[in-house]
């Protein structure tokens, strides 16, 4: 096999590599440094001041980017129509719940059999508080939010290669890793090994800080005792009355922690788009789309498959087919905001400048796979005291995310049983949906043995087989961004693109929203200029 860490490796190879070596969350951290994920530029509600001059705008796609454009442009006085391929609004802002059916490319149809109130979000599933645009629209549209447990210290870190495959609590690894790093750094300071970087005055402060940070004892050691047990957990927990006296637990050795590789997952929750507070819409991500639908649903024509986009000096004409009746239809407007994923747009006839055309064809889409599993009871809560949060693993399922809703309920519960990328996502996607579910069940049972006896049903979405995106989200490299990104975002005659693919927050709804606001602001300025 070829070594991937060659000088010729591309950024994307590198991201894939990091995604697998260091876990998906670490990949997002790396992406942030490569400008593929970032905090939002949203600065409050957009003000499209001035006359719309009776102009009309045709919006293609009713995901969050298209819906924001519809809402704000109609508010500003534009005549707006939206064409949407699906029989619902929202695009990737999507929830699968009991009674829903989903047919993927190739024809496999799954009926979601989840019990009342249970769901998975196959696409976006979290709303960081730093995604000010999504937060703004949720508040404005009355979309109720609840906390998403991103970093649960009681969830597991799991490696098939460490601890005989026995999952470890996040708190244990986190505490021991930080404790030993603190102890080692303290030793270095005391031996004046850092005197180049730390003055003697600062060294005293640093030592005191390290003691608290690492839960070290009075001698600056990370050892068994109250301080470490208060983080990593006790052998016998403190309580009240005559059985109250706690017994501290024994830390793992530094070497054990390092060799386990489990420390890799520790950094995953510190990036801006994973820090607490982080939210989810009550009842599923589709409720973001439904919030927009209450305002502008009347402007959306569903079941409309765009087949051609043509512009001239007078306006834009879009040909589309009604997917229910097969009718060939046309829509016209003065301007067009196109939010179709580039996977789809790159296959549609469109007359734009060569630079925009090249950009449309320059962005591949990430593979991704999610599996939702329903169990007869919430054994992760009842047996293991895991309430929401994420267990990470080196198994092909990559992670298990426990529901951040309906804690303590006695009925069936649904968890996210796989969220895979890299080569595993491709290999998963080639399997029939029921086999993807069976695999997720098999692998997950290595972490939760209860899986086998408690399983009820499952549903699996491989994003390359999603008929209206043919992939998860756009992947930019430093090179492709330098060559194509600005061209992709430019107003091209009467057409402007928007969506997560036209943002630096790829794969997040915030990318779609901020991209849309930026695009319609420039479009409005152009209309004002006459």
């Amino acid at each position: 096999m070829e070594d991937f860490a060659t000088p010729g490796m591309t950024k994307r190879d590198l991201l894939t590599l990091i995604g697998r070596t260091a876990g998906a969350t670490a990949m997002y951290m790396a992406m942030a440094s490569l400008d593929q994920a970032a905090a939002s530029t949203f600065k409050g509600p957009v003000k499209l001041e001035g006359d719309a001059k009776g102009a009309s705008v045709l919006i293609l796609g009713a995901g969050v980017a298209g819906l924001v454009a519809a809402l704000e442009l109609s508010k500003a006085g534009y005549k707006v129509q939206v064409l949407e391929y699906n029989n619902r609004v929202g695009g990737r802002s999507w929830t699968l719940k009991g009674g829903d059916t989903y047919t993927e490319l190739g024809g496999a149809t799954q009926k979601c059999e989840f019990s009342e109130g249970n769901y998975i979000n196959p696409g976006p599933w979290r709303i960081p508080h730093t995604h000010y645009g999504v937060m703004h629209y949720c508040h404005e549209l009355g979309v109720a939010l609840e906390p998403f447990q991103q970093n649960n210290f009681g969830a597991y870190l799991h490696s098939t290669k460490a601890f005989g495959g026995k999952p470890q609590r996040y708190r244990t690894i986190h505490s021991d890793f930080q404790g030993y790093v603190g102890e080692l750094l303290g030793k270095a300071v005391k031996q004046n090994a850092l005197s180049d970087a730390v003055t003697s005055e600062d060294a005293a402060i640093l030592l005191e800080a390290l003691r608290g940070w690492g839960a070290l004892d009075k001698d600056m050691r990370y050892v068994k005792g109250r301080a470490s047990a208060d983080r990593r957990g006790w052998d016998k927990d403190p309580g009240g009355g005559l059985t109250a006296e706690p017994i501290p637990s024994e830390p793992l050795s530094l070497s054990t922690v390092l060799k386990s590789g489990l420390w890799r997952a520790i950094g995953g929750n510190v990036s801006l788009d994973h820090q607490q507070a982080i939210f989810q819409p009550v009842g599923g991500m589709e409720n973001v789309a439904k919030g927009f639908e209450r305002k502008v649903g009347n402007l959306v024509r569903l079941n409309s498959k765009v087949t051609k986009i043509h512009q001239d000096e007078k306006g834009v004409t879009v040909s589309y087919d009604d997917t229910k009746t097969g009718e060939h239809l046309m829509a016209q407007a003065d301007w067009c905001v196109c939010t179709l994923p580039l996977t789809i747009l790159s296959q549609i006839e469109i007359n734009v400048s060569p630079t925009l055309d090249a950009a449309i064809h320059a962005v591949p889409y990430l593979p991704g796979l999610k599996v939702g599993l329903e169990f007869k009871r919430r054994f992760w809560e009842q047996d293991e005291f895991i309430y929401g949060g994420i267990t990470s693993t080196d198994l092909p399922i990559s992670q298990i995310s426990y529901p951040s809703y309906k804690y303590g309920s006695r009925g069936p519960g649904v968890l996210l049983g796989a969220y895979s990328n890299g080569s595993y996502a491709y290999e998963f996607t080639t399997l029939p949906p029921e086999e993807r579910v069976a695999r997720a069940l098999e692998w997950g049972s290595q972490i939760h043995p209860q899986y086998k006896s408690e399983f009820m049903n499952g549903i699996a979405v491989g994003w390359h087989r999603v008929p209206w995106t043919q992939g998860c989200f756009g992947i930019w490299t430093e090179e492709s961004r330098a060559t194509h990104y600005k061209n992709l975002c430019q107003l091209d005659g009467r057409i402007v693109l928007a969506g997560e693919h036209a943002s630096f927050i790829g794969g997040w709804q915030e990318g779609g929203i901020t991209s849309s606001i930026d695009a319609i602001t420039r479009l409005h300025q152009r209309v004002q200029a006459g």
Partner: protein
Amino acid sequence: MKAETLIRSSIAAVVAASLGASALAQNAPTVFPGDADGAFVVGTKFSEPDGAHLFKRVCAGCHMPDAKGAKGAGFFPALAGNKKLAANGYPVYVVLKGMNGMPPVGAMMTDQQVADVVNYVRTNFGNKYRDAVKPADVQALR
């Protein structure tokens, strides 16, 4: 840990592991026995041993097991009876560089694997192109 440091250390870990540095081997991507056809062995690259299995476990995710493609809001082109496969450099280029939304899956394959899967597709599904691609041809296009 800063992301840049993370990237550097990840590369270092992989390089060291590939050189057989045992101290870091624990932190290389986990390699599993995987499926009989070579799937699910490791998450960073494809391990399917031949063209038929590469097609079945990678390409078929989009182009479908019968290679006839699929249609939705857009489409995945059929590879069955596809005249664009006549020039053998074209499919090699697409596998290596991607096309429209298609990721460059060849980045996670060896030259031999890319040659194998291209040769498999060009001699199956109604395609009868006899001029086989060699690994060196793939290397030249990377």
